[in-house]
């Protein structure tokens, strides 16, 4: 087994635990590289099948290439896609000029909360990783959110020997993070090995590429000449900038991610 095999086997184990333990389970599909790897791992775990619905939270500000990619592969892979949107907030004119914290909370967190309530999902699989940013470095594989959708990061339950939190109160739910132990480079190495499709916004055009994808007004490309996966891997191994440096919501406040994630952000 090489290092990618080890990562894959651990993620498959987690996905299978989630599928066995949660009757009302969904997987978040942001269309980014990580959630595409996650979807691929689900097909590995369940032998070509995706036995859980995929949830995409459409803020209406996503880049058009992402929506086109979503619709193409949802059809090709035969997945059950649920698209959520906080229509009321949009109708009232929600946008990032009301501060990014307010906009992310309304369009992403509350958009997600509405879909979770509507379908009564008790488990939600997400592709976050520990090396993305500090609060995520402290996450559990199975991480509870309370009835207000909130994360009590100061009092997380023990998690040992792959015995996960699968028992919980009504009106609460569990976030499941099968990619927590992967790094950004691991994700690209795996995409290369498995030949997993990704949106071509990740590849350099006119000296720029996106390293992390999100809403168009709040996501900025980096200077890069990497126009294929091998070049991206080489670039990332030498970089001195963090992955989410181009995501405006992270930079808005010293503890922006902590505040957003405590309220139920991804």
């Amino acid at each position, binding site marked *: 087994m090489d*290092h990618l*095999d*080890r990562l894959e086997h651990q993620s498959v*184990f987690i996905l*299978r635990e989630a599928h066995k333990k949660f009757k009302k389970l969904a997987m978040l599909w942001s269309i980014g590289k990580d959630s595409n790897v996650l979807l691929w791992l689900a097909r590995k775990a*369940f032998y070509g099948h995706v036995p859980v619905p995929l949830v995409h939270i459409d803020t209406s500000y996503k880049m058009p290439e992402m929506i086109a990619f979503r619709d193409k592969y949802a059809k090709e892979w035969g997945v059950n896609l649920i698209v959520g949107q906080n229509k009321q907030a949009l109708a009232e004119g929600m946008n990032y000029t009301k501060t990014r914290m307010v906009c992310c909370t309304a369009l992403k967190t509350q958009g997600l909360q509405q879909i979770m309530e509507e379908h009564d999902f008790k488990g939600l699989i997400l592709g976050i990783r520990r090396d993305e940013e500090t609060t995520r470095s402290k996450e559990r594989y199975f991480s509870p959110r309370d009835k207000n959708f909130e994360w009590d990061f100061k009092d997380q339950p*023990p998690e040992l020997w792959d015995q996960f939190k699968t028992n919980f109160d009504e009106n609460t739910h569990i976030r499941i993070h099968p990619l927590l132990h992967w790094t950004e480079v691991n994700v690209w190495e795996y995409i290369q090995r498995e030949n997993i499709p990704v949106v071509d916004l990740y590849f350099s055009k006119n000296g720029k590429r996106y390293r992390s994808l999100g809403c168009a007004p709040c996501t900025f490309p980096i200077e890069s000449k990497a126009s294929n996966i091998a070049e991206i891997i080489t670039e990332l*191994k030498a970089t001195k900038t963090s992955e989410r*440096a181009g995501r405006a919501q992270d930079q808005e406040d010293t503890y922006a991610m902590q505040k957003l994630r405590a309220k139920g952000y991804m």
Partner: protein
Amino acid sequence: MDTATQEPLTGETLKIVMVGHVDHGKSTLVGRLLHDTGFIPENKMKFVQKVCEDQGKGFEFAFLLDGLEEERDQGITIDVAQMFFKSKKRNYVIIDAPGHKEFLKNMISGASAADVALLMIDAEEGIQEQSKRHAYILSLLGIRQIAIVMNKMDLVNYSEKVFNETKEAYAKHLADIGVKPTAVIPISAYHGENVLQKSAKMPWYTGPTILEILDNFETHEDRTKLAFRFPVQDVYKFDKRRIIAGRIESGRAKIGDEVVFLPSGKATKIKTIEKWNAKAPDHVEAGESVGFTMEEQIFIERGEMGCVASQKASVADRFWANIFWMGNKHLQKGGKYLLKVATQEVECVIESIHRVINSSTLEEISKNAHEVAKNEVAEILISTKKPIAFDTFDEVPETGRFVIVHEHDVRGGGIILKKAEHFSAI
């Protein structure tokens, strides 16, 4: 010595947990190590510099890990952070555990995922409550490779005498719990002495630096040579195949091997090893999440454990165990709990509490006790509602350990010492 941009010699990954008493400098050392090896992005450095300036203090390496507002305000680690770095030799996951007694459950969560440990003590403050408790917890978790790091040598003028005295006192305590450290390293994490390079301030020390001791640790133990153990996670019938899914915890298996499922005792042979989007292998081994189809369509459910017929696991409804308790409510003799061993879940009763130990001082608190309080360790007899399959922790760690769930959360963890005869003692 920037190793961030170099490819390590091997693709292997070693997981290290950093433990010890609160304020002895664990996060500072991890921050220093990541910084000096070039793993902290420039924008993150600037960011932390600004946070420190706002607080009116010098650069805090610990803040590179302690990212929660509450952690930085109080200068304390609340929960485990897992970080990634590499040396010239291999990749590392470094698990920074909290040293405060209140967060022991988080320390245990972090340590249970580690292959090896660095146990940190403050040269000036000496051995403290958690220095001892964490060492004992590591020994219970089965972590055998442990190095001692004596930090803040700058505060004792890099004194060899202080180093030797503390080292001796600590070695004595560790010997009592059967821990033999692979090295004892004097450092100053804040000033970077003996972290990557040998310190000129401590010429009397000729042993390894932090980075050298990490590279000297052996990789995690090879489980493929142990008896075959395959706890069934689920059975899939997505299409015409009926696939038995699970992770091989130890040993190996190939097509045609006979597998005995316990506790039911049903047996059949492996017909195929299933894969999606990859060539199906003819054999599989410990650590792999696999799926088998079997020659005979026996009825198997989650919780059965596939074993090799020549070396079967024990099947019993009573066993002796060592447990550590993390619940705010005490573990009660006669109390009913949910027990999880590999993929088995069964109701259990705490039949007797043979003795309770203070996990820091190792004093025996009581014999034939009625309860076990938070942060205490005990030897107990557990009986399960129905027979389960298990090994002792010494035989196969993965199938010889368990957790106890109460009111939705894991409250205790334990290792199985031996099977108990049915109603023999009473």
